[in-house]
């Protein structure tokens, strides 16, 4: 038994971490998990995912959380950081225990297990909410965890698809339609009131494409599915609609990110992982960037506007299971991070769901920036307020680590391949990597980098910044060496306008065009060195701002909310991490917990 401490004990599981904006703290009393945390029979290995919804009910705490674990599905009231604030006045633990045993809804399934879920935020109210659930055997269930009636089952006979549901989402803008992705590599569009039919659907090609095709169901009466998308080779692992709802990003086991214009069903962009499947995908709040994570242990940022990989991030020791942008820690050009200046409509959306942030407000700015043509560079006064120049995103992996990343202006401005020839890098690599001062723990890769770890660096002015006040100097700590050249110009606002060079874009299009006309087997090899899959030394390699082991088991989900960040792990535990300054010290002796936290209650 003595041997068992080997390997496991070296890395302590962290309960807090520091970024430049302050300390994030695990809320120990806000942990959601199955009520009886017994060792789970390892038969079911589906990742634990979380969905959130805000219902404008009377309780004042309208947030609900849904998560799956093994054969079970839970819906709870989500109190986030408020939970503990209220509880410090009483006996927190007791209250918590009572809470966990009283879910709003709990379902246990036999023979087929929940894999993913999504609340319908368009029709949600205090009286009821529609929750879609996908299953391992391919079925889809529509339930109302509040009313608990009128449950519907789709693909019940498994005539549409027998393989596991990997991702499910309501289609934004179409409150009755939803999209279901399967392990088979196909996605289906369903309409909630339509029947699934009693026969296997027959399809006809509706829209053929490169590496994908869209089919319609060939029947006299309209039935489900409305459309079938076949995308790439192998499983579809995840998809995400753009904040403007117009575009759909799909990632799969073939290692491709494909971005479609959802309505016109046209492929508008492609990216390939460095190797292996892509497991997760997320759009930046302004729709300009897409971040993916996958089996190459990397996070990869792809520019939707330039159609190119902007940078990769290396920090995980295993596959990256989930990625998410943090819409609350991204900086605008005027560094007006304080969102209180924005209109009320915007704030409501923030409160509604962390995944739908900026949906309406940024639609305009995205259109102006994404629309091809001459007006692309003309950032009008309306959108400038939301012209994000720095982005924060998080990733969680099978290594049980949480990483936070800063995507700064300097990285985003780098044209592809600029001065990143192999020899240039290798010279630096050989002089830096075997460096007498190099930390032994540094990987070969990180030896390329200037590795100042922010968490240990005291803030320059000694103040804890409650929110992300952009400190450019500190941001540089995480950039790769190739970015130093741009240091001198980063204060130049005019320079910033030339963010996306036309030259880079046209080169990229040629590359894509070429790639689309070759056989798929060779395609991924030939893509190497193109903007869709640059070589390792052709784009900046980011280091994480924060890289902490935060769980004993594989992490499966990450999401950012206004006052906290939420992670979930394979064991079925959902953790809430309070943002800096959003919660009092988690001690009973804390002087005025209510007062210090009062400002955070919406």
């Amino acid at each position, binding site marked *: 038994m003595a041997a*068992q401490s080997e390997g496991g004990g070296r890395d302590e599981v962290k309960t807090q971490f520091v970024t430049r904006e302050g300390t994030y703290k695990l809320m120990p009393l806000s942990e959601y998990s199955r009520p009886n945390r017994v060792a789970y029979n390892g038969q079911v290995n589906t990742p634990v995912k979380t969905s959130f919804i805000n219902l404008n009910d009377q309780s004042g705490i309208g947030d609900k959380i849904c998560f799956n674990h093994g054969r079970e599905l839970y819906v709870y009231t989500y109190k986030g950081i408020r939970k503990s604030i209220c509880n410090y006045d009483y006996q927190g633990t007791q209250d918590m225990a009572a809470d966990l045993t009283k879910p709003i809804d709990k379902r246990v399934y036999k023979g087929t297990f929940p894999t993913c879920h999504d609340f319908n935020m368009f029709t949600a109210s205090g009286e009821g909410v529609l929750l879609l659930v996908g299953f391992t055997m391919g079925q889809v269930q529509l339930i109302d965890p509040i009313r608990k009636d009128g449950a519907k089952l789709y693909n019940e006979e498994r005539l549409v698809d027998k393989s596991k549901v990997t991702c499910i989402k309501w289609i934004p803008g179409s409150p009755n339609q939803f999209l279901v992705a399967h392990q088979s590599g196909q996605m289906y569009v369903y309409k909630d009131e339509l029947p699934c039919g009693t026969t296997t659907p027959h399809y006809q090609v509706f829209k053929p494409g490169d590496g994908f095709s869209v089919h319609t169901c060939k029947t006299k009466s309209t039935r489900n599915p409305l459309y079938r998308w076949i995308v790439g080779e192998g499983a579809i692992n995840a998809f995400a609609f753009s904040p403007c709802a117009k575009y759909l990003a799909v990632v799969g086991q073939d290692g491709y990110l494909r971005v479609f214009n959802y309505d016109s069903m046209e492929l508008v962009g492609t990216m390939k992982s460095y190797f292996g499947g892509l497991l997760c995908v997320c759009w930046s709040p302004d729709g300009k960037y897409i971040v993916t994570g996958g089996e190459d242990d990397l996070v990869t940022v792809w520019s939707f506007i330039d159609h190119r990989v902007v940078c990769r991030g290396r920090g995980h020791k295993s*596959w990256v299971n989930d990625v998410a942008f943090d819409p609350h820690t991204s900086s605008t050009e005027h560094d007006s991070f304080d969102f209180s200046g924005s209109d009320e409509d915007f704030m409501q959306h923030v409160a509604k769901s962390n995944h739908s942030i900026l949906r309406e407000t940024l639609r305009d700015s995205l259109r102006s920036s994404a629309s091809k043509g001459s007006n692309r560079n003309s950032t009008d006064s309306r959108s400038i307020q939301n012209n994000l120049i720095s982005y924060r995103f998080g990733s969680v992996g099978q*290594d049980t680590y949480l990483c936070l990343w800063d995507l700064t202006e300097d990285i985003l401005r780098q044209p592809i391949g600029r001065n990143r020839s192999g020899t240039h890098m290798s010279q630096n690599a050989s002089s830096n990597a075997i460096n007498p001062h190099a930390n032994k723990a540094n990987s070969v890769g990180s030896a390329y980098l200037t590795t100042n770890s922010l968490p240990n660096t005291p803030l320059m002015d000694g103040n804890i910044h409650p929110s992300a006040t952009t400190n450019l100097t500190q941001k540089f700590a995480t950039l790769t060496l190739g970015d130093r050249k741009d240091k001198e110009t980063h204060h130049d606002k005019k320079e910033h306008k030339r963010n996306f060079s036309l030259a880079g874009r046209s080169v990229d299009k040629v590359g894509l065009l070429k790639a689309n006309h070759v056989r798929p087997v060779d395609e991924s090899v030939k893509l190497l060195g193109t903007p869709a899959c640059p070589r390792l030394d052709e784009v900046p390699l980011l280091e994480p701002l924060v890289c902490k082991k935060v769980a004993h088991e594989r992490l499966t989900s990450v999401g950012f909310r206004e006052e906290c960040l939420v992670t979930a792990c394979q064991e079925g535990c959902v953790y809430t991490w309070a943002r800096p300054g959003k919660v009092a010290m988690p001690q009973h002796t804390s002087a005025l917990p209510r007062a210090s936290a009062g400002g955070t209650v919406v």
Partner: protein
Amino acid sequence: MIADFCVKMGANASQLEKEIGTDQFPINEHYFGLVNFGNTCYCNSVLQALYFCRPFRERVLHYKQQQKNQKKESLLTCLGDLFYSIATQKKKVGTIAPKKFIQRLRKENEVFDNYMQQDAHEFLNYLLNTIADLLQADKQGTKPKNGPVDPNHQCNGKPEPTWVHDIFQGTLTNETRCLNCETVSSKDEDFLDLSVDVEQNTSITHCLREFSNTETLCSEHKYYCEVCCSKQEAQKRMRVKKLPQILALHLKRFKYMEQLNRYTKLSYRVVFPLELRLFNTSDDAYNPDRMYDLIAVVVHCGSGPNRGHYISIVKSHGFWLLFDDDIVDKIDASAIEDFYGLTSDLQKNSESGYILFYQSRE
């Protein structure tokens, strides 16, 4: 018991054919289980993995054809006979007894001359090196009569490379920087497979990067610097300079525990992707971007090196097969995750990937 087994085999074989489908069954391909001669699964699992390394199989069959009846029996002729026997079966599925090969193996090496469970990696190593030696001996022997067998490979100081080297051999470059004089010296080493340490909840990619991490040589491990003419502290790192055609990766899952005075198994969960590129290549690597595809995995089942069982999973014509001695099953690619290992540190007993075979796409 044995009768039961045979019935099961029969049922399994036809089941497999049915599962693949007669019209789907690859032409000229045979899926044959190998009979276990008493703890010979270490051998069976490696042989199956090698049989489905196409370049290796082709060379072995080619060798067999070249030889006909001229050669005296060796481990390579026995392997040739076995592969030939599988490849020329009338039936598409079934079982074969690798009796002659096992007998020869036991005769040639006393390590394997017993009924104990052996280490599959040791066996792979032994087999590849023995074949390389036999081929080199063949070349030496035939040269005076027939001239150079392979004109592509001229002598360059060291023994001529054989097709075993063409397939499996890569080169590591070992860079050492003296911390006193800052001189970097590098030395190349060839390898037929890489043995990497494993850590809990990591990927093979991470294990390979750790393998190439810079380490400091100090105290009793000091490095003799030729420039300083004395022992000095130094930093050392090993990176891949020449990437092999088939990259065999051995996960060091058996660790000697001094407290226990025996080896124990590290059942850590180490994920391995179907597609792989290397991050740990040297700056002067010839083809550092090489894309590899996973083609076979030797899996160890059980809790220790001398207990348990070996099976292998292989990719053939786009689908995955599981070879468990005489039993062959078609498995879904998504079932490969069952062989990554366990996330619980307490449990030692696992079915976990032990040797990974990646084939270069180019």
